[in-house]
């Protein structure tokens, strides 16, 4: 069996958030690129959990190889990290020249890679923590006519059947489908493993295989983006918060209850019987 995990390199969303909230996020002259070099680039955390799900399958006795694939101009660091976690194969798909790649182009490239090289199971994160779109897995599944099962906290394979425990707003749902399939993984899968020193050292010497779009059987028109990012900005929030002040926790609590009764959010009752 072959498992392909699609991974994306992103700007650290916590660092972006910290700069955004403090009003110090820098956006380039093109009005859309986040330019601060102090923001680390790392593997999308959900994709790291997808790798973890693949490795747990292998650790659990599934006879599978694990390939990590990423689309991007320079994904070496991210793919080396994938290797250090224990995947067998790392592949970088270079973006088509002169094209601003959107989710549709990324999905077309990943789908072509899976079609050409084969996969029984395609795993990826539920969404990327930069654009948060979460559409690439569904687009890949549709392009390959594979079933798509999203937001997994657990993934099990038994023969040609994959069983997925999904995290839904109403609690866990268990769904199953036949391989080949696309499954997206959520943070509820649990902490991904850390690479050990030996694997880290080994990963430094690994050079990902580079695949050009022309090496892949992308259908006609598949490399034409349907969306172009025009602008990016930090949204303004209108604050009208009254900060309550009093000299003790008890007085603060009483003051808050007063306010909530005065504005009729709460109703005062008869008090303690």
């Amino acid at each position, binding site marked *: 069996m072959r498992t392909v995990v699609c991974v994306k390199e992103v700007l650290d969303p916590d660092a972006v958030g910290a700069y955004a909230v403090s009003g110090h996020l820098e956006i380039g002259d093109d009005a859309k690129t986040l330019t601060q070099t102090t923001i680390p680039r790392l593997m999308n955390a959900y994709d790291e959990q997808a790798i973890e799900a693949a490795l747990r399958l292998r650790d659990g006795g599934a006879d599978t190889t694990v390939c990590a694939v990423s689309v991007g101009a320079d994904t070496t660091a991210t793919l080396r990290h994938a290797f250090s976690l224990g995947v067998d194969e790392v592949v970088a798909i270079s973006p088509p020249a002169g094209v601003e790649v959107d989710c549709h182009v990324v999905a077309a490239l990943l789908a072509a890679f899976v079609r050409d090289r084969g996969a029984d199971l395609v795993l990826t994160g539920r969404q990327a923590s930069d654009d948060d779109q979460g559409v690439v897995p569904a687009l890949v599944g549709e392009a390959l006519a594979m079933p798509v099962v999203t937001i997994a906290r657990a993934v099990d394979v038994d023969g040609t059947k994959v069983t997925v425990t999904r995290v839904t707003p109403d609690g866990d749902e268990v769904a199953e489908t036949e391989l080949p399939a696309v499954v997206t993984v959520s943070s509820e899968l649990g902490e991904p493993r850390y690479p050990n020193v030996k694997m880290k050292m080994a990963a430094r010497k690994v050079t990902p295989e580079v695949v050009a779009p022309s090496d892949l059987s992308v259908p006609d028109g598949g490399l034409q983006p349907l969306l172009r990012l025009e602008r*990016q900005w930090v949204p303004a929030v209108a604050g009208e918060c009254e900060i309550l002040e009093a000299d003790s926790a008890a007085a603060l609590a009483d003051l808050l209850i007063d306010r909530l009764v005065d504005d009729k959010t709460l109703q005062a009752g008869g008090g303690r019987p």
Partner: protein
Amino acid sequence: MTAPVIVCSTGTEAPEEAEATLTLGRKVAAASGTDVRWLLLGAAPDGYADVARRHGVAAVDIAGGDGIDEGDADVLVAAVARYWERSPGQVLVFAQTFSTRDIAPRVAARIGAAVVTNAVDVDAGGDAGLEVSAAAFGGDTRVLYAVTPGVACVVTLQPNAIEPTAADGTAPEPAVEKLDLDLSGVVRGVRVVEAARSDGPRLEDADVIVAGGRGLKSAENYQLVVELAALLGGMAGASRPIVDDGWIDSAHQVGLTGKITRPALYVAAGISGATQHVVGCTAAKTLVAINTDADASIFRHARYGIVGDCLEILPELIRSARDRGVRR
């Protein structure tokens, strides 16, 4: 005439969110000189005809039947794609829910359209053509996407992004048609072997929610949140990190990846206010924030704030609420 704007409701969205998508649809249709068609999948909600008239919808198309009514994703995707074949539009708008987030990109792939999730606005009719604004980085930034000219776009509208408003003036009665989409050949590829259990009261319907976050410092202290919620006749909510940490199960999670709530009172205790959480509680009529960090983002969304340790404040709130017998 330009192809219409199609708004699709699946019954998984709150009525307010269905109205928000109709409000957005009306704006886009007006800007591009076209109409709104409302596609209702599954059982049509009570009063849909009034809602349609209020929003100036030109036509209501209702499609139900086996698979659609159960909300099977494979069937819903096929149903919308088949609908689009007979009645194509320029924009297809869903209210974003757990379910529509899955089906929207698949529909886009089938009909050759672009797709944008977490959308907060759509503009049409300008020189730039169709443009979609969306939240990125968990809501910390906004992005604007331009859709390639001549390409249709599927969007899922983020909850609470748009205030639902009725159309001006009186609109004519919309044409209502019950569709019989042929879905006999649709393969259902995914079997649900154990459904999510959603018995008991739902956070989405709660009038009062007291929610806790990492500021509670330990799983045991979540009991304070539960106790205050019970005293006020409400329910207990949680931020994502403490659900991830296993302090409480995900049915309590409020936010973009959890529940979208609309209580009269929402108390956020020890929650910093990550945008992904705030999306799930900003529709509260009154939001109270308790946090040790005066710069915490949650205060930007709150009506009342207490800068302090929720572990000191919550027991006092429980005492004060009990002494005075306050309720909703």
